């Protein structure tokens, strides 16, 4: 029985991957868009100023040269948010077309049906991130010092948490036409509150409280920690929060997710 579940998950993921690859706009947008943004912005500013840590301990943001934020972390977050937006769009299209309902009428479990999309999004995130790293190495040789595996793991954990929020948002989307709108309306303010552009502790208390239950905030903190080489241990709270939010949003989506 478990082998059939795994087989079903694998088959569905593989079919969904092929279907996604047949949609030229989706594929290009997902894999290359964040890299293109990274390269264009990177070209526009001096490389050495680009990727320096924005808020090293003891330094204020205004004291830094170049961009007031970490472009690499922004690009990674754009990848994760892209994945979640694509997830919301796919879920709304599948729901409207009765595809989710049809899949539910098979022996596939609900978790497998949705899990296939999570696996797929994480796989595409990995590819996109790899492209980002390759572009970074080529554009700014010697500047990027970060541990790529550690950074990648943090991005995947953040993406997982953001995707689980995506399933909750997907249940709020009435028709596919609203998917992009609701996704953007939810994720861009989250990005603004994430601490990437303004230090987290300068936000008003109400915003900080909201930001605390948003995966983007903890993803940014963890990624900055990895970037600064302070590492996972120093940011275990953020990693734990990403996992906890993943659990909480997943549990919530089992209650609110609409299949039809």
């Amino acid at each position, binding site marked *: 029985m478990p082998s*059939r579940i795994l087989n079903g998950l694998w088959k569905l993921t593989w*079919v969904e991957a*092929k*279907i996604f690859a047949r949609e030229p706009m989706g594929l290009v947008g997902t894999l290359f868009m964040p890299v293109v943004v990274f390269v264009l912005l990177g070209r526009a500013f001096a490389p050495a100023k680009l990727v320096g840590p924005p808020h090293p301990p003891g330094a204020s943001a205004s004291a830094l040269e170049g961009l007031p934020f970490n472009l690499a972390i922004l690009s990674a977050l754009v990848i994760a948010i892209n994945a979640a937006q694509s997830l919301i769009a796919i879920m709304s299209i599948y729901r409207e*077309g*009765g*595809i989710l*309902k049809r899949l539910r*009428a098979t022996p596939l479990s609900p978790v497998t049906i949705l899990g296939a999309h999570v696996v797929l999004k994480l796989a595409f995130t990995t590819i996109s991130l790899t492209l980002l790293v390759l572009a970074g190495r080529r554009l700014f040789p010697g500047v990027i010092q970060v541990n790529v595996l550690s950074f990648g793991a943090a991005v995947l954990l953040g993406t997982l948490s953001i995707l689980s929020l995506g399933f909750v948002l997907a249940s709020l989307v009435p028709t596919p036409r609203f998917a992009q709108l609701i996704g953007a309306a939810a994720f861009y303010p989250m990005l603004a509150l994430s601490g990437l552009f303004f230090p987290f502790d300068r936000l008003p208390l109400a915003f900080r409280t909201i930001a605390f239950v948003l995966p983007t905030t903890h993803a940014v903190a963890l990624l900055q920690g990895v970037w600064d080489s302070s590492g996972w241990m120093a940011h275990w709270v953020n990693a734990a929060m990403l996992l906890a939010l993943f659990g909480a949003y997943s549990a919530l989506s089992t209650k609110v997710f609409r299949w039809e």
Partner: protein
Amino acid sequence: MSESRAVISVSNLGKRFGRTIAVDDVSLEVREGEIFGLIGPNGAGKTTTMECVEGHRVPDRGTITVLGLDPRRDGTELRQRIGVQHQEAQLQKRIKVWEAVDLWSSLYARAVDGEALLERLGLEGKRNAWFMTLSGGQKQRLFIALALIHEPEVVFLDELTTGLDPQARRAIWGLVTGIRDRGATVFMTTHLMEEAERLCDRVAILEHGRLIEVGTPEELVRKHCPERSVVFTSDDADIAARLRAMPAVLEATSEGAMHTIRGQGDDFVTDVINAVAREGIRVRGFRTEIPTLEDVFLKLTGHRVRD
């Protein structure tokens, strides 16, 4: 067939959505090896009833057993033994026909040969086509293939031919009788009375969520609309007057060369033919008008299915 065991039993099923009563105290049985049709206009509660039976909706009241299983409690086991086709369903736009069949066949404990199934349904030439490029009839044939991939014992077909042209519809009808002939039970819904008449061994008429009549199409017609008409084209002007005296005749009217004799009883048509022969009436044209399920529906509800 009439004494076969029941594979679906529904008793006192009730379901409401907000204030709307979708299904109101419906009880029915579907017997092994028959094609059973739920018929009625859109919004009569056909799909809701079917989805409760499939286990996709939770009824508010009533009990349902399918193949001896409770669709909600034993859903996992039941899904291995039933096949479903949903009304107006779609698949992923860019999934290929063979990929869908391959995916579906991997989900069941046992599955038939997908290629042979595609051939049987006339889709072998489309195995590499994307779903979005298929015609309406081809899409429905693919959905039938997905519903049959694991040789289910009961097949649920919801408004299978809605939106298809007459030719595609007829082709699908042949496939549905084929499902029954291979030993499966078919539980279907339709708002097309002609379809129900052609396909269904028994039908249940649903109106505003209530089941108002069950039986074979012939039984229902005989019971509720026993009248039939014989229409002659003849230059014999007093044909109506001469046949009006027959005991089974209720009414005989003439309009130019067209003469309509209306009566009732199984022997009515034979009696009219005999009378015409006996009277030596010369006839240029002859046809009978026998009531259909459409007429039964009109009689029982006071309106047409399409209204």
